[in-house]
């Protein structure tokens, strides 16, 4: 008897769940199949007009919300933002989750909304998960600037792009051409074969090299899968397969440091050039021991600095986020807003023996 009672009651519980699910299902009406929804975006800035001469108000509350705290890259960006906020006499604060998950930023955005933050600078863990929270923040009067990693464009006012794909590709090819005298075989050590950004850069590098440095021959592209050990082995394989190889371009921070590690311990040190995208802290020893002459990456401190000035310009009403508007960003000078509310930081920063000790990230 108790057995049937048990089953019945538990089934009762299940029914409760099913009822709740039904409520959930039926309460929302309208388009429910993919593609039906019109997706009426609530782009906030349309209609507002900019006043380029507006003063930046004092005591702007500027909040910096990284993907996660305790990440060296974002710590450097925060340093830049804090410096900019100091220059405009604002109040800087850094908040954020300890783990970089898609939804963990939402409660921090909610808190900032509740506190009445004037400017929110953020790098999104997910392009959509924080959208409605940002909408609420903006309707509460906050200006939202994304940097490094964008949200869907209708969820923020301006996105600060660290560099364009063209800029990244050209800088790396030019650095390599400089180091090998413009002629010879060059190989590319990439991340994974299906990494969208890497593949876009590689394609642009090949086009740019073919037109600007015709004597430079890109012989192959290999993939280290952003794993240190695999990148190390691929480097070894490249040097064995192509005995006349003059240089390696690695547009990934994992790849370039693994390749540098291999070269620095081999007979090829100083004979085969290596460049690409890396961080100063990873590459410092290889620049100092002569394995690497120069490599590139955007400067995260400038990225944070520009983001903060952009936020201030938005809060002041100097800009609204519309294409073609311009504003001053302190030491970095004047910037113009491009299509879709995107501002490009500029050419990547080149690191070499002279300047590498000025950076710590």
């Amino acid at each position, binding site marked *: 008897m108790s057995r049937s009672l048990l089953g019945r*009651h*538990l089934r009762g519980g299940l029914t409760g769940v099913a009822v709740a699910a039904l409520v959930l299902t039926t309460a929302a009406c*309208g388009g429910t199949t993919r593609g039906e929804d019109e997706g009426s975006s609530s782009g906030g800035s349309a209609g507002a007009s900019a006043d380029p001469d507006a003063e930046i108000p004092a005591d702007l509350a500027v909040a910096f919300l990284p993907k996660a705290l305790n990440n060296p890259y974002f710590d450097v960006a925060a340093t830049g933002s804090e410096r900019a906020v100091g220059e405009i006499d604002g109040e800087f604060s850094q908040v954020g989750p*300890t783990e970089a998950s*898609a939804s963990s930023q939402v409660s*921090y955005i*909610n*808190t900032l909304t509740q506190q009445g933050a004037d400017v929110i600078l953020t790098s999104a863990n997910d392009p959509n998960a924080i959208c*409605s929270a940002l909408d609420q923040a903006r309707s509460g009067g906050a200006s939202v600037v994304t940097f490094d990693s964008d949200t869907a464009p209708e969820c923020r006012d301006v996105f600060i792009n660290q560099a364009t794909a063209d800029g990244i590709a050209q800088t790396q090819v030019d650095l390599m051409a400089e180091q090998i005298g413009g002629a010879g075989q060059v190989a590319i050590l990439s991340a994974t074969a299906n990494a969208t950004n890497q593949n876009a850069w590689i394609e642009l590098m090949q086009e740019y090299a073919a037109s600007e440095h015709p004597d430079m021959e890109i012989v192959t592209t290999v993939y280290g899968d952003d794993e240190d050990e695999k990148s190390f082995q691929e480097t070894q394989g490249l040097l064995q397969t192509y005995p006349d190889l003059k240089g390696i371009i690695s547009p990934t921070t994992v790849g370039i440091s693994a390749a540098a590690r291999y070269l620095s311990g081999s007979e090829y040190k100083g004979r085969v050039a290596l460049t690409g995208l890396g961080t100063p802290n990873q590459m410092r020893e290889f620049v100092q021991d002569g394995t690497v002459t120069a490599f590139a990456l955007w400067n995260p401190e400038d990225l944070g600095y520009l983001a903060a000035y952009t936020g201030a310009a938005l809060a002041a009403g100097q800009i609204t986020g519309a294409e073609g508007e311009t504003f001053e960003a302190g030491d970095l000078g004047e910037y113009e807003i491009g299509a879709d509310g995107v501002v490009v930081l500029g050419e990547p920063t080149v690191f070499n023996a002279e300047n590498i000790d000025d950076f710590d990230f």
Partner: protein
Amino acid sequence: MTVETAPAPAPSGGSAAAGGAPARRGRTLPSGSVITTFLVLFLVIAAVSVEGFASTRNAGFLLLDVVVIALIALPLTLVVVTGEIDLSVASTVGLSSAVMGKLWFAGLPLEAIIPLVLLLGAALGAVNGLLVTRLGLPSLAVTIGTLALYRGLAFVVLGDQAVADFPRAWTTWAISSIGSTGIPVVVVPLVVLVLVTGVVLHATPVGRSLYAMGNSEDAARFSGIDVGRTKLWLFVVTGVVSALGGVYWTLRYGSARADNATGLELQVIAAILLGGVSIFGGSGGLLGVVAGALLLGSVRNALQLVNVPSDVLNIVTGVLLITAVVAPQVAARVKGRRRRRPAS
């Protein structure tokens, strides 16, 4: 006839301790009422001293953060009362979210996707339940395994992609509030579920049999309770509710991802333990669990509002938890010593 012989702890899990057998581990104070008192005190203090805490908008933000935790805590409380555990709940949320995204991307309507995802949740729960009840494996080991397995499957389904183009009507509904009260609409079905679960646990023979199992499985079995079958059902229900949590999570954030709700199981278990449910089974009440979830959410929210860094926030949560788990044990031990002293 059989259930009457089982011990019948009071809803708060308190008065049962008074007549408890000496063999019972970790006997508790009436912790459900303690935590509820503590919650009310905290809310009053925060409302007075933290700027922006006592507003309807903030209440809405706070409740939205607590909804999924409280939802999953309901069936998991029943599981813990029987002396078992399910650590795979957050991975079930993630896998449900990933499957929901995949099916949506394939063009199925949400009205079809949601029942399918709930069925998936039932299947995932059944896997846990069968491994525990049929093979007799410890639920801690089984669900640590499925925690990894289900999360892994979620990444197989969706990789590091996100599916985001859910209909706006649904995603705004998921965070909308009742009129201008700030109380999220989804609190209504949640309250219904709390009531259903509360009645099952505290006012039915089924509830009493769950406590009986938690106190002594053998005794429960001898008194005619089908322990295996009951536990299997509990795991299935937990799976379904976790999948429901996954559906809601996906709509709330408008983003289906394999890594959704990573680590959420710890917050759910924290709410349950803070609510005074003994991790060894056999005692605790649902009121305490709901209060525990609300307390954790309120503490986080209030500390965020006064700009306490999130690392410190994690420390505070940890200390709260340890206190909640250790305090009753210490109290019980002190009480035991006092009782023994005159005898010796």
